[in-house]
């Protein structure tokens, strides 16, 4: 044992030494220590110097409110005062500034979503009583406390039996230690951080028993190592059995420091004096401690270099000491309460902000509610716990018996916000190095709001979020502004998290492979095995192209295109959205949604359709099949599958509930294979023994339900997004892979989305989202033919607005670069010939799609161009930084304009 470890007492395990290093030096502590208590046990009180002014600093607290003693452990910046000691711990002192290192974190984080009747936050006497009272009723109760052990301030109190609540006996009560309530959100949603688990608790009732934080005192050189909160001194002595000093002066504004003095004396530590701001502290306390009490006084300064050696009380008196324990009063920990939208009010008697009203289903008890006597804390907690359980439907609402406790005193406090002295050395926020002088400067600049002062001085913006310095700052502002009380100034806003939470904990399991679901089609494994290069489309992985050995993307796409135009090719089209639309009014419904008409579509036929938003802009497109009199199957683009279903449901449920039509998503019921090319008919004939695939028997834009040669039921449609003869085979998802393999065995060339894009662009078919961007109407696309003149549909009225009816809107056109080898980049802007290329250059539009075409033996593009259709035949320029591509405007169709190829 070192001289600083007291010979007995404490809740540390003296039989369990723990080795650790701090700033590269080796030390030993005990199991049950925090890093801070272990350092004190080794005589180390001084920590890293302050951030901005480089002043020596020491450990100030024993908990989450520590402003100084921060350490870097494994790249994480943590307070030494809450860091549990463990073997091999290696910590480096830091002054409020972390350092991220690139070491990958192997720690696993996860989350829990739980519900309860009563959540108790804080496991001090008030919280324990509340949890016991609630738990015994059978209510689902959760008690969360940030510390390693339950007990709260009782851990720092000698001789209190902590086993009385017997929580382990209640099967529906869950105790979460080392678990901090970090955020309190709407409808009693409380987020708890427990090491590597983030709990999301939805509670019917909440009892907040979060205790109180002791405040420091503000005087010159109050940041010197050896100035420590009185409650922290008590906790170090009683809980950890370490002595932060041997000769102590106590400075206080309230009764609580007297108990500290008694405990120190009992531990054999000298208390030289108590400096009490009150002219007449309770006589009983003064008599009980039996040390000099300097009344009506305040500490005004300290001496010492790296450690306090004496304190000044006014100009005349100086008392030697090696530790100054201060109690500037207590702040009820209203953080959670305030986050819950509770309002606080200023209470003169204890000079603190206390809970007032709150709209959520919660109660605040114990020191958090400014109840500072132990017996009252217990009673308040028990009553609240019983009440909460009762309101949640459990128990009769009566509180259980409580253990007897000695009476305590809590007479009025007398705050000391400002004392004489050098204000540039009177620290308010140790982490931010800000002083009374800074606050004076802020108010002098004309600032009246505490929020402005906070931002001018940065008080309260550090890791500890002003848990210690916040209220003293308000006190100083009040004095400087001549306000009647700190209550007139008010607090800044309490925000989550209550204590810092690592990014990794918030991210939880949603990382790497699990970051966002990867959606795969039934054929995915085949694509992987055949070397597909994938692209992300929404959450889907779709093959972009299938390079062969030695091929780059361009070569692969040209080859795939050639196969589709001249031979036989196949594509996985399973990701397209599919919705069954059923009911007697299905046709009428589709008529109201699509720009073109569907009510009269023949059974067994398909029709391409387009959807607009109410503002008239193109939203989605797809082919619609009529399955039966009252049944349609609509298809959507991959990215909009969910959006279109939602769109249908919204209009039907909220606008036209009288329409007898219902929707069912079947996107994933079906796997879809497009078989494309002049060779497709011959290749499929043996696969589709029951069908006559001839153009006469199986017309374009019709479909058949059939059975494949391997017995698999299929729906085959003659639709073509490439302009070639094509068949689309739909089979149940579980037959997708085998059917794909069946088709692949015919020698079809698999192709990806890029080839699909080239083929459709050669035909002038648009891709919604690529050739449109939410500002394009069907007319702009040259698709007037798809806009019915005879019926109303969503979006129609918008076409006659002045701007939508303008003739010079951006219209879809084709572009042929003058040099057939020049590839216009997609996204290239277009300008008229002859305009000077000095910015701002008037732009006419942009290239939406651009490719090399195997069929055309050249490059080509689609573009949206202002008044584009009138420019057909003219040349436009695409300035690209260091070069300019000239291209001729054409009709947006490049291949087989007569449509002769689709029948093969």
């Amino acid at each position: 044992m070192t001289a600083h470890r007291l010979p007995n007492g404490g809740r540390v395990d003296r039989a369990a030494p723990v080795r650790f290093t701090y700033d590269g030096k080796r030390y030993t502590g005990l199991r049950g220590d925090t890093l801070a208590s272990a350092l004190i046990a080794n005589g180390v009180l001084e920590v890293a110097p302050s951030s901005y002014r480089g002043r020596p600093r020491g450990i100030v607290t024993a908990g989450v409110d520590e402003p100084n003693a921060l350490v870097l452990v494994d790249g994480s910046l943590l307070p030494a005062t809450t860091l549990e000691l463990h073997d091999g711990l290696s910590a480096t002192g830091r002054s409020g500034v972390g350092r991220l290192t690139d070491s990958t974190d192997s720690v696993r984080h996860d989350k829990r979503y739980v519900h309860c009747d009563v959540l108790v936050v804080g496991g001090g006497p008030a919280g324990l009583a509340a949890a016991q009272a609630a738990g015994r009723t059978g209510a689902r109760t959760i008690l969360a406390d940030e510390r390693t052990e339950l007990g709260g301030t009782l851990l720092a109190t000698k001789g209190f039996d902590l086993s009385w609540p017997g929580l382990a006996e209640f099967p529906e009560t869950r105790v979460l230690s080392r678990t901090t309530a970090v955020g309190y959100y709407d409808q009693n949603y409380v987020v708890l951080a427990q090491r590597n688990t983030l709990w999301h608790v939805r509670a019917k009732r909440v009892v907040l028993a979060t205790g109180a934080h002791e405040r420091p005192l503000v005087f010159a050189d109050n940041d010197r190592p050896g100035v420590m909160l009185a409650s922290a001194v008590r906790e170090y002595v009683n809980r950890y059995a370490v002595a932060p000093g041997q000769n102590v002066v106590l400075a206080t504004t309230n009764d609580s420091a007297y108990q500290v003095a008694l405990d120190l004396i009992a531990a054999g530590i000298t208390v030289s004096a108590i400096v009490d701001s009150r002219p007449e502290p309770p006589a009983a306390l003064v008599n009980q401690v039996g040390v000099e009490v300097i009344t009506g006084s305040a500490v005004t300064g300290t001496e010492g270099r790296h450690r306090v050696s004496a304190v000044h009380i006014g100009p005349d008196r100086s008392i030697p000491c090696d530790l100054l324990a201060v109690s500037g009063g207590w702040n009820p920990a209203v953080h959670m309460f305030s986050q819950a939208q509770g309002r606080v009010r200023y209470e003169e008697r204890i000079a603190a902000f206390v809970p007032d009203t709150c709209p959520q289903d919660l109660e605040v008890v114990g020191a958090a509610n400014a109840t500072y006597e132990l017996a009252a804390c217990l009673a308040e907690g028990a009553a609240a716990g019983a009440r909460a359980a009762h309101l949640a439907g459990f128990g009769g609402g009566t509180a259980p018996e409580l253990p007897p406790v000695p009476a305590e005193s809590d007479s009025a406090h007398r705050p000391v916000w400002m004392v004489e002295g050098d204000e540039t050395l009177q620290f308010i926020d140790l982490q931010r190095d800000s002083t009374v002088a800074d606050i004076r400067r802020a108010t002098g600049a004309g600032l009246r709001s505490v929020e402005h002062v906070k931002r001018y001085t940065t008080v309260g913006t550090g890791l500890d979020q002003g848990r210690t310095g916040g209220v003293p700052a308000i006190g100083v502002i009040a004095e400087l502004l001549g306000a009647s009380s700190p209550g007139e100034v008010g607090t800044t806003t309490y925000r989550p998290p209550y204590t810092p939470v690592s990014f990794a904990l918030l991210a939880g399991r949603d990382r790497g492979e699990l970051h966002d679901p990867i959606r795969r089609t039934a054929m995915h494994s085949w694509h992987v095995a055949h070397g597909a290069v994938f692209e992300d489309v929404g959450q889907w992985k779709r093959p972009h192209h299938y390079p062969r050995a030695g091929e780059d993307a361009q070569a692969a796409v040209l080859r795939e295109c050639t196969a589709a135009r001249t031979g036989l090719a196949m594509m996985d089209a399973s990701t397209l959205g599919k919705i069954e639309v059923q009911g007697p009014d299905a046709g009428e419904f589709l008529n109201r949604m699509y720009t073109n008409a569907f009510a009269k579509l023949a059974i067994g036929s398909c029709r391409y359709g387009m959807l607009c938003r109410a503002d008239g802009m193109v939203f989605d497109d797809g082919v619609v099949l009529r399955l039966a009199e009252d049944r349609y199957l609509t298809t959507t683009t991959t990215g909009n599958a969910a959006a279109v279903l939602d769109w249908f449901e919204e209009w039907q449920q909220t606008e036209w509930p009288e329409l007898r039509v219902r929707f069912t998503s079947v996107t994933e019921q079906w796997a879809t294979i497009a078989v494309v090319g002049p060779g497709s008919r011959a290749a499929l004939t043996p696969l589709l023994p029951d069908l006559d695939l001839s153009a006469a028997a199986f017309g374009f834009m019709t479909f058949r339900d059939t059975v494949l040669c391997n017995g698999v039921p299929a729906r085959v449609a003659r639709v073509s997004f490439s302009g070639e003869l094509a068949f689309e085979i739909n089979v149940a998802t579980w037959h997708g892979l085998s059917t794909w393999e069946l088709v692949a065995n015919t020698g079809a060339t698999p192709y990806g989305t890029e080839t699909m894009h080239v083929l459709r662009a050669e035909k002038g078919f648009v891709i919604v989202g690529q050739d449109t961007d939410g500002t394009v109407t069907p007319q702009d696309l040259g698709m007037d033919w798809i806009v019915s003149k005879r019926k109303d549909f969503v979006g129609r009225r918008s076409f006659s607005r002045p701007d939508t009816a303008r003739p010079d809107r951006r219209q879809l056109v084709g572009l042929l670069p003058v040099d057939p080898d020049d590839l216009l980049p997609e996204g290239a802007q277009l300008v008229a010939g002859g305009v000077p290329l000095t910015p701002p250059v008037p732009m006419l539009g942009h290239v939406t799609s651009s490719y090399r075409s195997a069929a055309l033996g050249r490059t080509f593009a689609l573009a949206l161009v202002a008044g584009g259709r009138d420019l057909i035949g003219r040349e436009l320029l695409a300035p690209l930084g260091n070069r300019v591509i000239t291209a001729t405007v054409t009709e947006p169709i490049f291949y087989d304009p007569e449509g002769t190829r689709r029948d093969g």
Partner: protein
Amino acid sequence: MSAVLPEHPEFLWRNPDPRRSYEVVIVGGGGHGLATAYYLARNHGITNVAVLERGWLAGGNMARNTTIIRSNYLWDESAAIYEHALKQWEALPEELDYDFLFSQRGVLNLAHTPQDVREGVRRVNANQLNGVDAEWLNPDQVKEFCPIVDISPGVRYPVLGATLQPRAGIAKHDHVAWAFARTADEHGIDLIQDCEVTGFLRDGDKILGVQTTRGPIMADRIGLAAAGHTSVLAGLAGLRLPLQSHPLQALVSELLEPVHPCVVMSNHVHVYVSQAHKGELVMGAGVDPYNSYAQRGSVHVIERQMAAALELFPIFARAHVIRTWGGIVDVTPDASPIIGATPLANLFVNCGWGTGGFKATPASGWVYAHTLATGRAHPLNEPFALERFTTGALIDEHGAAAVAH
């Protein structure tokens, strides 16, 4: 030791009581209101002006934004006004004699899908022709510009490239507001805090003044600059505007030694992050979908945000969130602002900046001052008139600004 921020001036502003009447009253003491006041004095010599603020000056979105400044917008109308702003930013620290830490460290907008790439290239080309600096970077160039971005192809949404605007960057938000406020105050403009506008004094369709918690105040012209609260104010005058107010959240980490040299934004993965001068990582989250005036949002939005951030920046895993907060952003149907006259005589609006108005602060003040001084739109704000919703001539910046900051 940490980066020391520049000292603020000894004096910022008087705290006057409101007078009975002013030539111009600006409702809302955020960045836009304060900049408008400044430019009324600077450009138009109008100093008989009051800025009425219901709380503390610049305590609304101005106190809450992630401070990203850029001008690389898609459409000509937007590029013109945001680029005007960026040019103003470049001159303002000197002009206002206030070091508000304007740092042109460059903004990357990452592309993760071929669609992102097309949109990015489109924007770069449009920007260049509009005289806005813009470059397209390939993944290696991204890595060079911002070494901590994970560009490996194995991540869920690999980085396929990025647009870079080198002149873009950040500035310290409240210092900016105070710089405008101090100079406006020096010109004799009254900045009146704790003064909430609660109604309008009117004669038929003509607005004569405002009712406030500090008494009635008359004015020849009244300009609303109340951001998220504009609908509420307009409602007091019987006007309905195409605005919806949503929570938008942001967060900061503890102070960290410099790790992140620029600003990175990703629409697809939903991240935008920079490291402020003090050293904290400043990050924005997505807009909460529902309407709200509560200045706070939902925690799952933050959780998603962190997951996304770690995909792009694995090095952030051990950083801590120390504070989260929310603002109230006023969103228009086309994600562009509304600046100009209203159907009520003497009443003007400047609103709808949504998630991205900080960067526009100087230009917004410039054109709004012009509008309030002359009664007519400045050429830069002409396209942003309310009428566009009737004609359909929207300036749709959704594509380029899905998470517009």
